[in-house]
């Protein structure tokens, strides 16, 4: 079977994702890491569009890159850590020990990769492939019909709405963390007093 355009786009996007993610982990400055991670979401979004998930691809850019990673950028600009100080593994504290630790972690993860990737590839290539047969698969219309159709006995609707409670808990936790003043201490009870 000849290689199609989708194959080439997938190969380019996959290589770009892996290289950009590696450079995120290895970059010296936190600002550069965050911006590289935002950049690495563009080829991920391209892969999603190739996988016929256009709405998810748009969400990846809008929500992930536009909201969550911008939050990281704001926090980094707010606390303004000095670039390079204590950021590069092996250059802070005890250099030799740190570098050896980095090499051990690299060795461990490479070993895990060599153990895990071949069986996963073997299993994935032996699974029967189901073709997408639904018109408008992955679009907003089809997706919202899947989640919100017949809400009375669709468990997806309830669990989707329950995310809002999770976000509410997150908001309350963040506000609670960022309060400056201490809460008023309860007056200690004297012994013998009711």
């Amino acid at each position, binding site marked *: 079977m000849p290689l199609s355009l989708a194959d080439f786009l997938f190969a380019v996007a996959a290589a770009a994702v892996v290289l950009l993610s590696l450079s995120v982990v290895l970059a010296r400055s936190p600002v550069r890491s965050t911006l590289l991670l935002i950049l690495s979401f563009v080829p991920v979004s391209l892969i999603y569009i190739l996988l016929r998930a256009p709405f*998810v691809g748009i969400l990846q850019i809008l929500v992930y890159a536009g909201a969550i990673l911008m939050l990281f950028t704001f*926090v980094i600009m707010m606390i303004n850590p000095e670039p390079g100080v204590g950021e590069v593994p092996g250059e802070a504290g005890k250099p030799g020990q740190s570098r050896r630790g980095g090499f051990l972690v690299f060795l461990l993860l490479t070993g895990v990769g060599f153990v895990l990737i071949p069986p996963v590839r073997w299993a994935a290539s032996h699974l029967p492939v189901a073709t997408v047969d639904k018109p408008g698969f992955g679009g907003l219309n089809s997706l919202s019909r899947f989640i919100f159709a017949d809400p009375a006995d669709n468990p997806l609707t309830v669990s989707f709405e329950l995310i809002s409670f999770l976000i509410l808990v997150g908001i309350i936790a963040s506000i609670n963390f960022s309060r400056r003043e201490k809460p008023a201490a309860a007056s200690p009870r004297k012994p013998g007093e009711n």
Partner: protein
Amino acid sequence: MTWFTLANCLTVSLLLVLIGAFGLLRRRSLILVLLSVEIILNGVNLAFIAFNYFRWGSEEAGHYLYMLSIGVAAVEAAVGLSMVIVLFRNYRDITRERIARLGEVEG
């Protein structure tokens, strides 16, 4: 022989998880640790969407799981970053070594 297969998508996803784990174990700044968690979540999301396309072509369960996952990622980033801000305000230091000594008296 095509490149756009489930095996290749899962390989990219596994590589992203491993890269994120490397950052999680090696970077000293807490912000970089949170960014590594985002890379891991990104790999997992890619696996969801790939399985959905290659195996369940009739409904969008993987896309739904992706939406749950970015909800969790947003909350995790918000809470984690507010903790980073509080730690920075109190100690002027957000490296892992300082966090490991939380609660001890400054020497």
